[in-house]
């Protein structure tokens, strides 16, 4: 994982140099600056040094929490990050809980009760996975926010319960697609397990339905379910960009978008790094969970 983090940070940093024009042109964006300022910035950003050395400086700074200074706003990037991060974090956690609880519950229900309920859930999730997050957001905003006025439509609120209220619609919008997808995966895995040999063996031993479903069907289905759930949570990191835009939240996603428009490259780099790092961390956690659930991976197969 560490290697991956390093390499991706390198890629993000190096992408600066992919842009047409010289790096300092990108840093300055549309502003015109005097040669003296240019020289000073060059020195500060080590732009005249060899590339790898520049990367090293940047990396060590980042690890110490120094993300550089935003050219556009003349404030340390880290400051803007600490203002935006809590909102995104709250949103992602809130959404993740919604996804995992609803997705698994609906999927298991659907698998255990074939019939009308199952068909309904299947159709709903079929459509649900075709709904983009921003559409879900807009619809929720229009209906529950504007028409019914149950929830506020703008901003992230202050204090725990107020924040909960403000972030409910965004969290649901963010979770929408993921719940549909996770439900389907859960249902498919459960059904496969229910028709599989271990379940038949368990039934043949006279175990009660509850025990069979819990200890065998669900326990085995957990492996793909956890994997997918983890991927969905990781995917929220990208989705947050959209949802924050729809609901006017001042989180990391919104910060990223404004920096892109402002051509504030340092901030773009910083936010990208954080988001990608979070993505990698979540994926790694999923891998770890996977090995804990499946002893064949843990201990290595083929050891009679």
């Amino acid at each position, binding site marked *: 994982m560490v290697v991956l983090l390093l390499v*991706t940070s390198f890629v993000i940093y190096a992408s600066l140099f992919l842009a*047409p024009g010289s790096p300092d042109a990108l840093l300055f964006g549309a502003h015109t600056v005097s040669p003296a300022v240019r020289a000073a910035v060059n020195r500060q950003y080590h732009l005249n040094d060899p590339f790898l050395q520049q990367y090293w400086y940047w990396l060590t700074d980042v690890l110490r929490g120094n993300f550089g200074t935003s050219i556009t706003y003349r404030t340390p990037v880290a400051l803007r990050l600490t203002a935006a991060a809590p909102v995104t974090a709250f949103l992602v956690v809130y959404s993740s809980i919604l996804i995992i609880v609803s997705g698994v519950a609906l999927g298991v229900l659907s698998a255990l009760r074939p019939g009308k309920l199952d068909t309904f859930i299947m159709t709903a999730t079929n459509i649900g*996975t*075709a709904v*983009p997050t921003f559409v879900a957001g807009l619809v929720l905003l229009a209906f529950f926010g504007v028409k019914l006025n149950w929830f506020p439509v703008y901003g992230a609120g202050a204090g725990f319960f107020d924040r909960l209220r403000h972030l409910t619609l965004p969290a649901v919008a963010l979770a929408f697609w993921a719940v549909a997808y996770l439900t389907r995966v859960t249902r498919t895995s459960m059904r496969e397990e229910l028709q599989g040999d271990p379940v038949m063996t368990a039934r043949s031993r006279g175990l009660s339905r509850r025990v069979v479903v819990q200890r065998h069907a669900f326990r085995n289905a957990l492996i793909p379910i956890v994997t997918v759930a983890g991927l969905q949570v*990781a995917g929220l990191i990208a989705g947050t*960009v959209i949802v924050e*835009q729809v609901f006017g939240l001042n989180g990391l996603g919104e910060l990223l978008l404004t920096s892109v428009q402002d051509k504030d490259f340092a901030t773009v780099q910083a936010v*990208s790094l954080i*988001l990608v790092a979070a993505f990698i961390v979540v994926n790694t956690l999923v891998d770890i969970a996977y090995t804990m659930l499946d002893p064949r991976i843990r201990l290595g197969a083929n050891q009679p």
Partner: protein
Amino acid sequence: MSVLSILKSRDDQHLLKRIHNRIGTGGMVAGGFMVFLILAATLAPLISPFSPNAIDLLNVSSGSTWLHPLGTDNLGRDILSRLLWGARPSLLGPTLVIGVATIIAVPLAALAGWSGGLIDQIVSRFLDLVFAFPGILLAILAVTLYGPGLYPCSMALALSYMPWIARVTRSEILRERNKPYIKALEVQGVSGFAICVRHLIPNVSATIWSQVTISFGYALIDLAALSFLGLNILPPGADWGVMTNNENAVLQGDLNQVLYPCLLIILSVTSVTYVGKRLSDENTRLLK
């Protein structure tokens, strides 16, 4: 069996009948809908009643009228025309994305799956690296460097979808590779390249097609989202995603202009995904 073999086989059955056997009635409806959309998009210059940017100041934010069957948006532009013209980038974009992604992914996967060993390791690590970047993030980076537009966005997305297609293809190829008929071909001295092109890839094509169609759906969603964020097609351009980027309209309850493009997006993605699922479901139809 290769998906495209439907086109090649010369049974007594009519082509449409063979397709119907493969994807079912639902698949025909979904597929037909997509064909209709593609036609509409292609013929947009001919059939669109108005230019997508033409402003009709007398009819701002109107509902359905004879002149404007689907109404106008809050700048007075005809929604139907914008939908028709907007279909072009909305459908072209995902096609570009998966086209490029597949052209890179399949040979890469074949190379990794066939060679094994160090090459496989290197390719897999490379795929892991690309995997670490969520598509939208990659697109944002691309836009930062190259400015907004269809090409930076679709190329970035193509790169981010490539590992998905590559991974699935690679595992299927690994499975096929160990089958006796491949070993037999090897023993006969057929080159690795020839085996991949003439045998391995056609035999995993069903999986590739299903992954491609599902990815098409996701790419459509992602590109629309990018338009919504102002990174892909920019106003005043017409594109289903950009048409939804009108917060004010929604907040004021003027939903038409946002509703129709959303609907089209959802319907297109559902259709394509449905056809994809039917294509990959080899057991749906008995070939009688």
